[in-house]
């Protein structure tokens, strides 16, 4: 990982010095049904190439198409445009199992769908593995009679207009990475329903409360058993695997087309003005997030040391004599530091958690004994990372403990740093001596009084013992035997 990162950095540095670079790699594979489709997205390709990505275009049937090379991912990123009409899947080189393996190997995937084309079953079953369900009706799309573009979809109401600032949710404590100014146009979007259990899933753009899925080809007046409605429908979905590989499902591929980059749209609500769609900015953010330009956090060195004696309150870690020891004693004070940095355009900068959120340290054995908020500080000595520190007293319990920093937040890569240390009991010579303890004085006095008494008694006994009687006694005893 490190190596690849370094290599990609080097490569990226050589190739271009433009706006943004992925923290992971620049090789991007684009799978589209037909070469002819390529021209419809020319602005999008240019944007990506400007940001340093090396694009490779393949069709699903291309024999050269392979996600892996020598067992390693051949590309860092994959962009899947919707397969053509009538195809059952994405072809033998893009089976769901291969795509899952590709993600498990750490690569990122952006999958775009379109309501215009029926969705193959292979895609549905792949998405089910991420706990994303698509409507059983393969031709349905999301319509909304209150938030449509009155200029292009006056009749069909299937071009949704949504505020860009809501992208990525605007929840407290969640990093604001994907929001854009302006209004987004999502034509012919496929709405997905996200499973309730998976913490890895996040909806970037939810449908408005008045939206629902509808198959225009059925030409019915009303829908009886609707698949999902309102904000249960996710139009753009983010999935970040445990290994921080990212998978994005874009419900509307048309939103990336040149036609929708430049167009002006007008919200159906009365009195709204027509304005330029913010699709281009959003596409940049969305690909930026998926392809690890945004929201990438990494952990640097972890240090912990005994905050006692000569090492107390050390600020310069290089002066420490015993850093990251493997064993501590109970009830001692310990200092813990972790370096966190985040990727900004083309270099690492100090990471600061979003407002009202904190990086936490757990000191745990089976269950946490301490859960502490780490305080971020930056030092001029290290301009690339911020130090998160905590000082605390170890619990009064011996065992094998972990310093555990687990920072999993929506849209940020996962941080999981575990350092195992042993916490031992007091050694036999580490207790305070008895003469230090005031309460022990009566006992000490007792001991020495007894000793003195015994010695005194013996002395008295020996001094006062009559010599004559002893001889007699001995004779008597011998006789008795």
């Amino acid at each position, binding site marked *: 990982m490190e190596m690849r990162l370094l290599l990609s950095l080097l490569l990226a540095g050589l190739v271009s010095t433009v706006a943004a670079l992925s923290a992971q790699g620049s090789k991007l594979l684009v799978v589209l049904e037909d070469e002819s489709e390529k021209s419809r997205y020319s602005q999008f390709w240019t944007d990506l190439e400007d940001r340093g990505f090396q694009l490779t275009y393949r069709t699903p049937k291309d024999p050269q198409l392979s996600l892996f090379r020598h067992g390693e991912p051949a590309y860092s990123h994959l962009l899947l445009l919707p397969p053509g009409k009538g195809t059952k899947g994405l072809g033998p080189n893009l089976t*769901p*199992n291969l795509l*899952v393996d590709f*993600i*498990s190997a750490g690569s990122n995937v952006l999958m775009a769908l379109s309501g215009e084309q029926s969705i193959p079953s292979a895609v*549905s*079953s792949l998405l*089910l*593995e*991420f*706990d994303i*369900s698509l409507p*059983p009706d393969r031709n349905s799309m999301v319509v909304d009679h209150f938030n449509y573009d009155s200029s292009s979809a006056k009749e069909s109401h299937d071009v949704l207009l949504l505020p860009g600032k809501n992208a990525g*949710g605007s*929840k407290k404590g969640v990093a604001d990475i994907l929001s854009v100014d302006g209004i987004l146009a999502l034509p012919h979007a496929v709405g997905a*329903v*996200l*499973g*309730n259990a*998976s*913490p*890895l899933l*996040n*909806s970037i753009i939810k449908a408005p409360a008045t939206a629902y899925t509808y198959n225009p080809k059925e030409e019915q007046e009303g829908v009886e*058993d609707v*698949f999902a409605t309102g904000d*249960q429908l996710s139009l753009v979905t983010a*999935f970040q*695997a*445990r*290994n921080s*590989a990212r998978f994005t499902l874009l419900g509307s591929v048309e939103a990336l087309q040149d036609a929708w980059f430049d167009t002006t749209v007008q919200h159906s609500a009365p009195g709204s003005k027509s304005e330029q769609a913010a699709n281009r900015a959003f596409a940049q953010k969305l690909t930026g997030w998926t392809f690890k330009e945004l929201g990438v956090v990494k952990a640097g060195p972890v240090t912990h040391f005994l905050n006692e004696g000569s090492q107390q309150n050390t600020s310069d870690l290089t002066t420490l004599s015993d850093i990251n020891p493997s*064993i501590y004693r109970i009830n001692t004070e310990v200092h813990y530091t972790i370096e966190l940095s985040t990727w900004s355009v083309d270099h690492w900068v100090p990471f600061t958690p979003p407002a009202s959120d904190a990086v936490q340290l757990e000191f745990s*054995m*089976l269950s946490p004994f301490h859960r502490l908020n780490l305080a971020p500080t930056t030092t001029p000595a290290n301009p690339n990372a911020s130090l998160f520190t905590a000082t605390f007293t170890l619990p009064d319990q*011996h*065992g*094998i*403990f972990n310093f555990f920093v687990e920072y999993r937040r929506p849209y940020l890569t996962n941080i999981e740093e575990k350092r*195992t240390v*042993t916490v*031992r*009991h007091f*050694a*036999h*010579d580490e207790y305070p001596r008895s003469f230090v303890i005031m309460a022990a004085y009566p006992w000490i006095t007792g001991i020495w009084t007894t000793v003195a008494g015994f010695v005194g008694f013996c002395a008295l006994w020996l001094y006062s013992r009559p010599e004559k009687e002893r001889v007699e006694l001995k004779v008597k005893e011998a006789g008795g035997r």
Partner: protein
Amino acid sequence: MAASTTAPTASTASSSPMAFFLQGETGRNTRGLLRLIILCTIAAAAVASRLFSVIRFESIIHEFDPWFNFRATKYLVNHGFYAFWDWFDDRTWHPLGRVTGGTLYPGLMVTSGSIYHLLRFLTLPVDIRNICVLLAPACSGLTAFASYLFTSEMSDSPSAGLLAAIFMGIAPGYISRSVAGSYDNEAIAIFLLVFTFYLWIKAVKVGSIMWGALTALFYGYMVSAWGGYVFITNLLPLHAFVLICMGRFSPRLYVSYTTWYALGTLASMQIPFVGFLPIRSSDHMAALGVFGLTQLVGAAEYLRSQLPSKQFQTVIRSAVLLIFVVAFGGLVLLTVSGVVAPWSGRFYSLWDTGYAKIHIPIIASVSEHQPTAWPAFFFDLNMLIWLFPAGVYMCFRKLKDEQVFIVIYAVLASYFAGVMVRLMLTLTPVVCVAAAMALSQILDTFLVASAPTENDADTKQANGTPAGANGSIADKLSSALPDTLRSTKSPLVGIYSYLSKSLITGAITSYLLLFVLHCTWVTSNAYSSPSVVLASRLPDGSQHIIDDYREAYYWLRQNTEPTAKVMSWWDYGYQIGGMADRPTLVDNNTWNNTHIATVGKAMSSREEVSYPIMKQHEVDYVLVVFGGLLGYSGDDINKFLWMVRIAEGIWPDEVKERDFFTQRGEYRVDDQATPTMRNSLMYKMSYYNYNSLFPAGQAMDRVRGSKLPADGPQLSTVEEAFTSENWIIRIYKVKDFDNLGRNHQDATAFEKGNKRKKTSAKRRGARVLRVD
């Protein structure tokens, strides 16, 4: 045995050169020298008979507990004494760790450590492993010597001590725990036990502080070496108490008992594991009580000697009784209020054999805690077991203080040996001593070549020189029989006929020879297997070694991270720690029942239940022992019910023993097995892929003798990492969490190409909405 032939016949004045060596001062020296040579030979025989395991197999540590002792000894030798004393072991009982330095009996390790350093000092660098392997045989030589001393205190017969020594040297009951490689606490503890008893008898006989202090010293050593020291702690007070009750209180008893108790208790409190137990636990209260009683009785005796008034004596007596009752009541009160710890569970299980099974399955599950089968007595002691009552009877004939000790010891030890197989070990010394006394009596009577002469006893008494063995028997008899009858005043006893002499002697000789044969046979066939390495016979009779344990442990050692945690049933904890050098969750120390129950629960539950437990405990590998292929009956499926029972003790709602039995109450592993059984992690890991060894539908478990279901179990949360040659050890790796956040069943199904079924909205019932 040969010793009895050295007994000279003083009455026959011979002028042969032999007579010079056999009579007078020189004769005494000769006999002493012979005795020494015989003792050395006995020690050599004791050591030699324990070397079968080294010759048959190799110089290897045996079984389970010795592996921990060996590991601890290595730690001691490598890190020094103080590091050992303060040792916090972070490689066992993960993640709790174990304060090993404070929870073990260090005597064994310190002994071998000292020997190691002594040999190095003498420029004899011997591998610590060889010292550990050979410590037990070396100590058995000393035990033989100690039992010689002990028996010599009991009997006047010159042969009794030597007989006891050789019995002790080769009795299988003791060999079972002291063959080469059996590096356990008992290895040195039995020597210390016998030697402490000898010193105690000496102290009671002589009544000297020195012997009492020596008793305390060796008692302290014993405490540092074995938990069985409680036996001494209760036996010596019982002896003293019985003597007091018999009205045999004497200053000798007072001096020896108080010296032993005061110094011995202080010595025992120096062991961290014992600490304040001698004054806090019920097991030790008898010693304290008798200590108080001796003070009271001593004071009363003193007062009585000063104040001859009869009334005053009764007052004193009633006062003694009253104080005793009050003290006893106070003790009971303290126990009830919790200041003094109540009897431990192990202690209760000594009185009620069913107690442990109900309340503490962890104790009952150990094979050596089972009640003894009757044939075991004969197996372990052979002819000694029928000589034993005769010896005890002889003690009654001459019931001095030391004979009382033997009687008490015999009664207690026979009871305990009947309750627990393991305590056969404490019975063996007293059986050897008693049998030697009985046998020496027979030999002394029948092995005298000359017929007794009818000279009257008075002349002998006047001469002051007892006329050989016959005379001494007559003396003994006359002292034993009451003096009331004239005919018994100088009884004439003896064996006159050479025929009966040779008949009895021949019979005894053949018994002894049979005994030696039996001991050798038992030692070589029953007690010399290291159990780490299994031996079997090939059709052509040659020995075939089954080395699966070591194969698997070395696989772990070489192929896993040094910090990889291994979960297995506790039986294998010490071996994994010792041979594979990997952290374990539970081991044979069994100090934390809950932790063992956790492992039991993980083994006996479904995968979905076990997986979170294993992840929480950071388990990397799971090790199971499976004997189905080879017919090795000591495997985990056979131990499985104990895991279930122990887990049920903590989680009665989640693990139920009944669910592992079929409707008809059978414990089955074939297709009749209950779903709980077949879904348990242990069952799945044992039989995973086992079908592939056989033609379809022919899979056979050779231990349970049952045919297995055609479809083997499927595993999703663990994956097979290693299976040893004969499938005895199977190691599984615990998978990490699924990368996509699915459960492992789904992930495995997906990998196999099964599409996940979309649950339709109708079947799902009420729609589950996502809440962000």
